[in-house]
């Protein structure tokens, strides 16, 4: 411990203003605050503080994403081995998935954190932790066959134009990971949707084998669009189906949801409302005969669970008033199913629903805050009469 502190103390002059490496100050400070708890003490107001900070919050979300990520890795291998007709053990399939996904995670963090470091250096601020979460979510909501360079471009776009120009973590209007996905979805839609992107096709370091270019495999939601549902409910919940990397397993996402709700980092109001809104809408469509899927199948398939648990609950872009959270969540659920059922072009509606409601969250909050304001004004008038 002393050793770490001494190392940092020794290196500090070089990174400070006027030092040799001053252009890396933000990186130095980022690593220092990552390893050592700053012993800066309070200068005004409360002399004592809660141990919670945004580093802890963001790392909890990252931990909550772990089950979905690990299962996603296994599923990448599983889908590949199935398609290739290979027999493989659990570890082998997992290893394949790990090798397929790891480069994406690395690239995502390198690009995103790189931009964060530069911005922090430029603005003379501390590194903000928000990207720790975004950087892991992005690879999990993309199809495995999305090329690395595309992802890198999308992340750069999203971090700069959806976050930094608004002022950084806490000031953005749209969920950054979803902006990256929407960027890809509309710019390179052939790599984001269709039947060609969901199963990894190459052999990696001797694992798996190369599949022919003509191999295709649709997600269950796309199959619904063309009329036939072949996936069992069991598969939908366990998640051994094609889809974006992290979104397939309801069980893995539920594990993350438990952690987020238990620590209070995600709002149960938002999360529950998304499911209620989506469930009711899907049940209505099913009853009307518009959708062949039962309401629970709608909730289990596609990005619904992942979006409801990890993205709708993003505290920065969701509604911030307690009452507003119900409306915000409910409408996300409703719109997601609406898009799925009524728009044949898009088999999945979760991304658009959340982005759309991100846009409306301030309006919902405005109504609640305004109610408080007019209540106060009325009271003042009544008293001064």
């Amino acid at each position: 411990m002393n050793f770490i502190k001494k190392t940092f103390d020794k290196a500090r002059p070089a990174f400070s203003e006027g030092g040799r490496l001053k252009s890396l100050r933000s990186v130095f400070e980022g690593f220092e605050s990552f390893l050592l708890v700053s012993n800066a003490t309070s200068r005004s107001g409360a002399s004592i503080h809660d141990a919670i900070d945004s580093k802890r919050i963001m790392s909890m979300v990252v931990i909550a994403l772990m089950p979905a990520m690990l299962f996603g890795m296994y599923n990448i291998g599983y889908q590949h081995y199935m398609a290739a007709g290979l027999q493989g053990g659990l570890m082998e399939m997992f290893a394949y998935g790990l090798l397929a996904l790891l480069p994406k995670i690395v690239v995502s963090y390198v690009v995103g954190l790189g931009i964060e470091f530069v911005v922090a250096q430029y603005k003379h601020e501390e590194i903000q932790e928000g990207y720790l979460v975004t950087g892991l979510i992005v690879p999990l909501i993309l199809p495995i066959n999305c090329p690395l360079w595309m992802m890198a471009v999308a992340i750069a776009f999203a971090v700069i134009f959806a976050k930094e120009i608004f002022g950084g973590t806490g000031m953005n209007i749209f969920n950054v990971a979803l902006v990256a996905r929407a960027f890809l979805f509309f710019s390179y839609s052939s790599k984001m949707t269709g039947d060609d992107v969901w199963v990894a096709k190459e052999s990696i370091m001797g694992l798996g084998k190369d599949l022919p270019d003509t191999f295709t495999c649709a997600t269950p939601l796309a199959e619904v669009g063309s009329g036939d549902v072949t996936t069992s409910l069991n598969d939908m919940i366990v998640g051994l189906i094609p889809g974006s990397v992290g979104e397939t397993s309801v069980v893995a996402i539920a594990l993350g949801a438990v952690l987020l709700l238990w620590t209070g980092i995600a709002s149960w109001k938002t999360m529950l409302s998304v499911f209620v809104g989506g469930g009711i809408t899907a049940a209505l469509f099913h009853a009307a005969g518009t959708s062949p899927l039962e309401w629970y199948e709608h909730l289990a398939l596609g990005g619904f669970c992942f979006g409801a648990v990890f993205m709708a609950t993003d505290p920065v872009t969701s509604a911030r008033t307690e009452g507003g959270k119900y409306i915000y969540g409910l409408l996300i659920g409703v719109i997601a199913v609406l898009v799925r059922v009524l728009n044949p072009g898009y088999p999945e509606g979760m991304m658009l629903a959340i982005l759309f409601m991100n846009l409306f969250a301030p309006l919902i909050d405005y109504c609640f805050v305004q109610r408080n304001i007019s209540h106060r004004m009325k009271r003042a008038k009544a008293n001064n009469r």
Partner: protein
Amino acid sequence: MIRRIKLKKGLDLRLQGQASLAASTLPAEGIYSVMPDDFNGFSPRPVVKEGDSVKAGEPLFVSKDCPELKVVSPVSGKVEGVVRGERRKLLSINVEADGQQEHKTFSTTATTADQIKALLLEAGLFAFIRQRPFDIVANPQDTPKGIFVTAFSKMPLAQDFSFALKGEEEHLQAGIKALAAIAKVSVGIAPEQEELLSPLLADADVYVISGPNPAGNVGVHINHIDPVNKGEVVWTLSAEEVVFIGRLMKHGKVDLTRTIAVAGAEVKQPAYVKTLIGAPISALLKDNLHREEHIRIINGNPLVGTKTSMDGHLSARATELTVIPEGDDRDEILGWIMPRLSDFSTNRSYFSWLQGRKKEYNLDARIKGGERHMIMSGEYDRYLPMDIYAGYLIKAILTADLDRMEALGIYEVAPEDFAVAEFADSSKLELQRIVRQGLDLLRKEG
């Protein structure tokens, strides 16, 4: 008439070093110091110079804007120094106590509102009355819509007023009676004080207020009893300051003795001390500290008090003196992922929820995280039991949007109401400083 208010929002935090219920008396010796900064919104003009002799109850400085508003000496003795800081700002007036404690005497015949106001002004006790909006020293020209007194505090390590009141019951009664002549008085008490206090408060409306910290804050009481609207003024006091008024009404002299809690994890024997305001901290803490380095001495409690030092003096407003570890000598590795079992957090990613509500924590003054933009939503509202959107109000202040601050209810709050929220804030914003800034800005511009 007794009414009951139950509050749910807030947080009770227990810290090590609660003062045990035993009081000693600090003799009036050495240098006593009165600091204008304790009287917010007051621009001081000294009326004594070095070498002057003063009696207890004679003015040391007066308000530039309103010369009849005075702050008086707690002790009799010789003025030892008029201390000024940058740009000749008056920092304090120090009086060397002569140990005789001679008092200036006042008449005790005042009965009407104007007479009582004049007496309080003359005796320097008016300066202890604060007003909302702005949480500053009240303006004697105002007619308040009510006077609000709080008889308890839920802050960590706070003074237990029921104990401090021992032997002063008749003074509290007399003080309330005097205030009731000026305006309607409402007193907020804790449920466990009902038996002790309600017989003494016949001249006031009594509200029994239960709930976690900040349930003892007078601002919270006002918000639930009769909120402050634009254009209205209420006056606020703590119950011990009402006792000061009672002593004046009964005996015709100014006796600024408080029974303060000397508490905190760094204090060897935390207990109560009867002392005059402005007493030297070094005398209050003499031979009673575990160590002299890496500690933080706080005038008041750790949530709203201000940092002071061994050379400092007891603040005029402080009902407790607390000493906690500073924490600047602690090195912790990877704190963001460690279990940190001895630390307290409202968040369940730490384990304080496992350790029961009775556990006493030893918290130091570290912020334990970097300042960020407001990320989590509703964090402040959970610790502010008022009909106010705290996060939105803070944002309005940060953007200096006067109209919006007003619309969101800034007239109803004081910095101390945000103390618990500031403690729990994961974005580590200095909420009390921000609120004070907003109030000052609004007062200047409005």
